[in-house]
């Protein structure tokens, strides 16, 4: 549903809501995957991101997001200098991630490493600052950053949703939306839960501790 606050906003560093604000949000989500500033990152730009990204500050915006700067943070302008000063190993490549319409023209694949963790995500900037992350670690997800989100892959066992929602409600976290998909009965279930409050670390840890949960990420709200 369109909100007048989406129309009169966001407050952002220019020049482009898709190539700058959206790009920054994608960087913020990649940062969340390793729960902090990555030590190294490979940023593969596709389509319009690859062609006009430099002029729009897309490179600065993604790096700024990886550094934890939000779309309205004026440090985005100097993100590349800050990255070099901090000695971070972030590299850019121009690539083709697939054909339209399967791959959005403003797409990026970001691989991030921090300590012992390495994760990869595929995301796109859809316009007006809106984004969609469509893949994390090869798993299909749909994360738009408008809510705090928990993305999970779990074995298809009975009562799994009840356990998951139980853990959330025990911590006072209210569910806004919940999407569950699976390819076939007994196959992996992909679960994306959007919640109103930021879940505590222990919620993520409790979910990860469930024996039938293969994989869990907590992704903070980055816009909306």
């Amino acid at each position, binding site marked *: *549903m*369109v*909100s*007048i*606050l*989406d*129309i*009169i*906003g*966001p*407050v*952002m*560093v*220019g*020049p*482009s*809501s*898709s190539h*700058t*604000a959206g790009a920054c949000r994608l960087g913020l989500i990649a940062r969340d995957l390793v729960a902090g500033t990555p030590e190294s990152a490979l940023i593969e730009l596709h389509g*319009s991101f690859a*062609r*006009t990204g*430099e*002029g*729009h*500050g897309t490179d*600065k915006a993604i790096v700024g997001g990886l550094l934890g700067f939000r779309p*309205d943070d*004026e440090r*985005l*302008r100097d993100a590349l200098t800050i990255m070099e000063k901090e000695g971070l190993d972030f590299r850019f490549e121009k690539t083709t991630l697939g054909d339209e319409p399967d791959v959005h*023209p403003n797409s990026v694949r970001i691989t991030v490493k921090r300590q012992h963790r390495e994760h990869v995500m595929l995301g796109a900037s859809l*316009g*007006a*600052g809106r984004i969609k992350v469509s893949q994390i670690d090869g798993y299909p997800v749909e994360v738009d950053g408008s809510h705090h989100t928990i993305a999970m892959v779990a074995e298809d066992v009975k009562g799994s949703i009840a356990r998951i929602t139980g853990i959330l409600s025990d911590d006072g976290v209210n569910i806004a939306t919940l999407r569950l998909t699976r390819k076939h009965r007994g196959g992996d279930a992909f679960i994306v839960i959007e919640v109103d409050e930021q879940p505590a670390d222990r919620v993520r840890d409790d979910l990860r501790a469930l024996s039938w949960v293969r994989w869990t990420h907590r992704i903070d709200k980055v816009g909306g």
Partner: protein
Amino acid sequence: MYHSLHEAIRDAEARGVTLATVALEIESRDHGRTIDEIREVLGRALAVMRHSVEHGLTGDLRSNSGLVGGDAAKLRTGPAGPLAGTVFRDVLMRALAVQEVNAAMGVIVAAPTAGGAGVLPAVLLGIAKQQNFTDDQLISALATAGLIGAVVAHRASLSGAEGGCQAETGAAAGMAAGAATEMLGGTPSQAGHAVALAQQGTLGLVCDPLGGLVELPCVFRNATASAIALAAIEMAMAGITFAIPADEVIDTMGEIGREMDVRYRETAGGGLAATPTGRRLAKERLVQIKRV
């Protein structure tokens, strides 16, 4: 939110209230925020708009590519034309200022988009300065503008990549015209006519930025779209009506956008971007950006 201006105008006039009032009520109902909370967020947007105007008027900004910058200051201090000392020149100056800030990676409010961000602050703040409108009145005007923009987003598009510049600076002109008309005391119907009068004047406008960058002609399109908004406001306040309702003008914008060749939708494949000079400048400047 409303899907047509017709319904919003009907509801507002039936109750004798403004479009801003019905917009804030529906926003509150749809998104579970109080009207005070919504006004507070809009107030923060207003403060950023004001700051971006002031920042742009200092004149010491250059864009990444160096293609634009410093022109807002020329309108502030440069030689007089026929509009010197008028609200018209003030508005043009502010529109350039905000877009120069945007192109230089400064902070702006994308309303409705970054590429069209100059029009609304220019028109509202330019008029408010002349007539001493309060922040409360400006915040109400932003709510009205948000309502108009939401209707355009629903019925057509607010993206240059989808609908050309008519969907960015054109939509911004409609939003600014309707909002300012109401702020000046026009009825909801008059605000609707102002939207129609503004957007009929931008139908078919293509998105053809040099090198695909939000710089040239975007900065100047914000000034000319603001001029169209002022023309629409002046006509609507005088009681002029436009025979095609605003919703149908917006639908027409959407239809033209869908038919528009991809070269004219932000790809730099046609229009000014594809002129010999446009191609040469884009090539030179992109090389320069890579060196920085």
